[in-house]
């Protein structure tokens, strides 16, 4: 009979840390270490060909006082996130609700709507997107049937961001699937009871559906927000790869990439990275803190 070498209860330090070893190595070497290094680099001037030279806070000063592109890029990225995320979630919820009415062929429809999410991240789709939004591309041809002359979407700084927003909203399928699963979990008798009370569809939506879905909305919101802040491929492919025209596709990640890998100012790029980290941290914290007020975890328990 084999001897029990480790107690089942009580500390299992050795085993646990052995299991965690790959993750811990990764954490220190690829995450925490680089984070500290990038904080250091953000205070240097470094072009990869010679050693870093210490410049103190001058990168940050330049970013906040002299850099027009930074301001435009940050503004653009915020605009993109706060436009595309709510739109995407709204579509996802609406379509999920429409599909949840017990329609035949649900599986097929679910698949069809999911496909854009599946393919949307690829370079191929971004290229297609660029083509269909060209001055005389498919979108404008479609609009011309209604007598509308569309602008040169990808050539005009005012409009090109909307092509990228559309691309993001087009990919609502993944959020929709999560909402569908969430909707299924809402007990039907809640709706029946409110019917008896004479509640209309709208009342039901705000009184039952939204609160019951709030944890799911919360999750989707956080993941979508963080993902959108980091968008790169669409900006790179649909724009001219340099953030044009007029920095209208200069998403924050693209600006970081250009500064670091094109203009060879790795110190500046690191400073930009830390600023983005702080911003995302702040927004995530805001969503977490306010969740107390609007996320409802069921069992009549408010908050976390």
């Amino acid at each position, binding site marked *: *009979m084999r001897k*029990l*070498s480790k107690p*089942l209860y009580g*500390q*299992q*330090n050795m085993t646990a*840390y052995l*299991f*965690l070893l*790959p*993750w811990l*190595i*990764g*954490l220190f*070497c*690829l*995450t925490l270490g*680089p*984070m500290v*290094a*990038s904080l250091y680099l953000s205070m240097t001037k470094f072009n*990869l060909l010679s050693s870093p030279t210490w410049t103190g806070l001058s990168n940050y000063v330049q970013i906040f006082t002299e850099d027009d592109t930074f301001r435009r890029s940050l503004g653009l990225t915020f605009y993109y996130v706060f436009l595309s995320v709510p739109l995407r979630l709204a579509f996802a919820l609406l379509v999920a609700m*429409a599909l949840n009415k017990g329609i035949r062929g649900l599986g097929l429809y679910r698949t*069809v*709507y*999911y*496909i*854009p999410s*599946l*393919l949307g*991240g*690829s*370079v*191929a*789709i971004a*290229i297609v997107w660029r*083509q269909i939004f060209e001055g005389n591309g*498919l979108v404008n*041809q479609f609009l011309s049937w209604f007598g509308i002359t569309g602008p040169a979407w990808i050539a005009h700084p005012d409009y090109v961001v909307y092509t990228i927003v559309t691309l993001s909203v*087009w990919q609502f399928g993944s959020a929709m*699937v*999560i909402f569908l699963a969430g909707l299924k979990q809402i007990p039907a008798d809640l709706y029946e009871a409110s019917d008896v009370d004479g509640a209309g569809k709208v009342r039901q939506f705000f009184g039952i559906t939204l609160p019951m879905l709030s944890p799911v909305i919360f999750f*989707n919101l956080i993941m979508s927000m963080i993902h959108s*802040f*980091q968008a*790169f*491929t669409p900006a790179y*492919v649909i724009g*001219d790869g340099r953030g044009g025209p007029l920095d209208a596709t200069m998403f*924050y*990640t693209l600006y970081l*990439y250009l500064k*670091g890998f094109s203009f060879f100012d*790795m110190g500046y*790029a*690191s400073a930009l*990275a830390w600023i*983005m*980290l702080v911003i995302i941290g702040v927004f995530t914290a805001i969503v977490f803190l306010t969740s107390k007020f609007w996320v409802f975890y069921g069992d009549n328990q408010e908050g976390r």
Partner: protein
Amino acid sequence: MPLKRRLVQAGRHAAIILFGLLMLYPVLWLILSSFKPNHLIFTTSSLIPTSFTLDHFVNGWKGLQGVSFGRFFGNSALISVMSVLGNVISCSLAAYAFSRLKFKFKGLWFSIMLVTIMLPYHVTLVPQYILYNELHWINTYFPLILPKWLAQDSFFILLMVQFIRGIPRELDESATIDGCGQSQIFFRIVVPLLVPALITTAIFTFIWSWDDFFSQMIYLSKIDLFTVQLGIRSLFDPSGQSDWGALLAMSTLSLLPVTIIFLVFQRYFLEGIATTGLK
């Protein structure tokens, strides 16, 4: 009034189908245009090709500078498969520790792990590049694969933790009574039951690594190391003449592996996403 209801039903179906077609239009356009001769691709707006050609697939396959797209597909496949293996193994190990084992500082490490899920990659990008540069790993696949073997896609750790929490502890207990240590419990009990989550992890890892244009662009510049995404990007020359037919044909092919995996493993996909969202 059954008729009214049927009409409403039919109307709803029609709306959903129409919307679905609209959603798929870009994809359909991409696929069908790759069969049209070059001069017709942008001039006709109808989806169905009036003249049908397979030339673009043949030409596009030739690739760049003598390196065929077959090579690119092989490279992408190698990277993706290695990434899948890495994630499946390292994330399941970590997830087991977090969900089943008691150890010092567990709360701290778990919180850190949660935070890293939300960490934007900008802040580690530059130093990682410098690190890999020092190791002379630029223009190799190490930078793309190593993070997977070190469980840095912590999203999957969380996924598996949630999943393992759903596996009854009684199974563990009876195994211990039979004399199994923790690692044996892991291999004999937990892993077999973890399979759905492993499959979900494998699928998503495959797709995300297949589409990871940014990392591939930064670390790979030698053409025979190119991936499918880089190959397609290179066919697209904004300041020159792109061979649109070849570009669209290769793009269509690039979407195939991901689509096939999705169709075969649909169940795991959609259930997997749902599980992550709900816990």
